[in-house]
């Protein structure tokens, strides 16, 4: 069921693009951009909801109830709910698009792995996933696994003559782009805002890039290529929406300490 609805259409689309462009690395990039564009309505919805939540967190009333009911979690939740209703905000609205996207992204990931077919069992599965009426096996195989300096089917390392080890360039780029993509949508913390939530967000911003970097370091470089492209498209989409905080990644710029929620409702927005 999962294979029929998600994996097989993805595999066939990926192979079809690969057949058109003649290179599997380029196909992964185009395929990632295409799926990100298709999923954009969901991403936009998520960004809109996130922005509303950020606006709420800098609202005077929100900050007040955070301070007032700090020790009473039940009461705090009730008051927050009242405020959500009053401001017509659905706190789940920012999660739902992510939840819908999640199986698609997992499917994409699985389709990529299966298409790379680095062993006989994978190849056997791949030949069974191809729609014979849509693609001809002889035309789509073998996949051109060489892209720039890397082999899509194995973990990427850039070997420089004289250097005794390979540099995991893609893994480094994955860490950087994942950090940027998560950091630029994180608003500066307001005084009195929910400390626990902010703390979780901060930890996510630190650990997520390393998790993604670890995956890019240890898995096939085709997946790392997917992570990088996906991150870059996501950054572009955030930038287009205008809801970004570039200051968060500009370490060289001296940051102004956030004053109060009232005097500084929103921070720097993308132009």
């Amino acid at each position, binding site marked *: 069921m999962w294979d029929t609805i998600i994996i097989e259409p993805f595999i066939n689309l990926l192979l079809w693009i690969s057949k058109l462009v003649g290179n599997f690395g380029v196909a992964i990039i185009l395929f990632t951009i295409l799926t990100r564009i298709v999923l954009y309505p969901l991403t936009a919805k998520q960004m809109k909801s996130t922005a509303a939540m950020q606006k709420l967190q800098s609202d005077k009333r929100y900050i007040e109830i955070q301070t007032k009911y700090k020790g009473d979690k039940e009461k705090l939740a009730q008051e927050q709910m009242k405020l959500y209703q009053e401001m017509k905000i659905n706190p789940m609205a920012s999660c739902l698009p992510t939840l819908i996207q999640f199986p698609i992204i997992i499917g994409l990931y699985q389709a990529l792995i299966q298409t790379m077919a680095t*062993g006989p069992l994978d190849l056997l599965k791949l030949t069974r996933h191809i729609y014979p009426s849509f693609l001809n*096996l002889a035309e789509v195989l073998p996949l051109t696994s060489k892209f720039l300096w890397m082999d899509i089917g194995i973990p990427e390392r850039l070997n420089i003559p004289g250097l005794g080890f390979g540099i995991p360039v893609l893994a480094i780029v994955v860490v950087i782009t994942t950090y940027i993509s998560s950091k630029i949508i994180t608003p500066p913390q307001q005084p009195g805002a929910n400390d626990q939530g902010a*703390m979780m967000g901060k930890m996510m911003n630190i650990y997520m890039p390393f998790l993604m970097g670890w995956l890019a370091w240890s*898995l096939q470089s085709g997946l790392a290529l997917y992570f990088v492209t996906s991150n870059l498209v996501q950054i572009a989409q955030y930038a287009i929406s205008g809801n970004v905080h570039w200051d968060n990644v500009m370490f060289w710029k001296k940051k102004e300490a956030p004053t109060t929620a009232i005097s500084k409702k929103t921070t720097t927005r993308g132009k």
Partner: protein
Amino acid sequence: MNKNRLVMILLFSLTAVLLTSCSGAGVTNSWAGVMAADDFVYFSNGAAVYALHSDSGNTAWQYPEKANAKRLFYAEPAVAGEQLIVVDYANTMASLNAKTGAETWLFEGANGRYVDSPLILDNMIIAPNTDYSLYAVDLSGRLVWKFETGHSLWAKPVTDGESLYFTSMDKNLYAVDAASGMLIWQKDLHSSSVARPMLDDGIIYVGNLEGKLFAFDSSDGSLLWEQQLGGGIWSAPLIHEDKLYIGDQTGRISILTSADGKVEQYIETESAILGTGVLLDNGVAFGTEEGSLVVIGFDGARLWTRSFDGNLYSNLQKQGDHLLLSLTQGEKPLLAVDLNGNEIWNFSDKK
């Protein structure tokens, strides 16, 4: 450490492990290889290569002694005198003492995986690799030559003693000089091939993933005939007198006339046949994906079928009166059965 932070780190670590293990990198994406020589059965079963006593299936030794997740062994080992050559899914070819399993040398000059077994020719080891190259290494582990093709090499070559014949995923069949590694000729197979070729009486028989079987003259590569079979061909045909016997991905066993490729008869097993079968005194045996051992007479009559737990993807091997069955995902990964399919012994690395 802050409790939240600890939970977060644990969650991320778990996710990393799960995603890595779901990726196919470092997990089983091939099937085991078995080979019999003298009094031993050598079994490459993922994390280790086992030497088993052929009469009992008891383990004589295993290599490496401690499993290493990065070194996975699936290709059948090859015997070169007292050396046993094993190849892995990292990029390593190792020479072991065939009797003790002691490592004598390593060759790490390749950049890809060794999917299939190396060929031993006189004092050379000829090994296909997924880094698009065929490697010729001498018996002390030194590279003699390397021949590069347009894509991955997944199948063991055949030889007439002077030339090597092998397929590549780049859709070609190659003939190269065994001594120098120089190209003699190459022929288009129209589709990728992962099948070993078979050489008999100056004719090379080889199939591709689209299910086409070809016959070429080994001297100049001229095409003698080609025949479309039921589905993808993953292994070499068997020959008995003037007939070829070959299974395909649709589960069909085809019997062809070797002179002109005419299909005389076919038998449906309804489960994919990927490994090479074996010739018996009274017919041929093939293993199927569903775990059946199908034996047909030379005339195509179905003699008997036995079912086993697991998938019979690997090439079948015959050792004396035993058949060796490597069963992927089976409770018993290796079975020795008699020529009627009755179990004699089994080997499980979980024991």
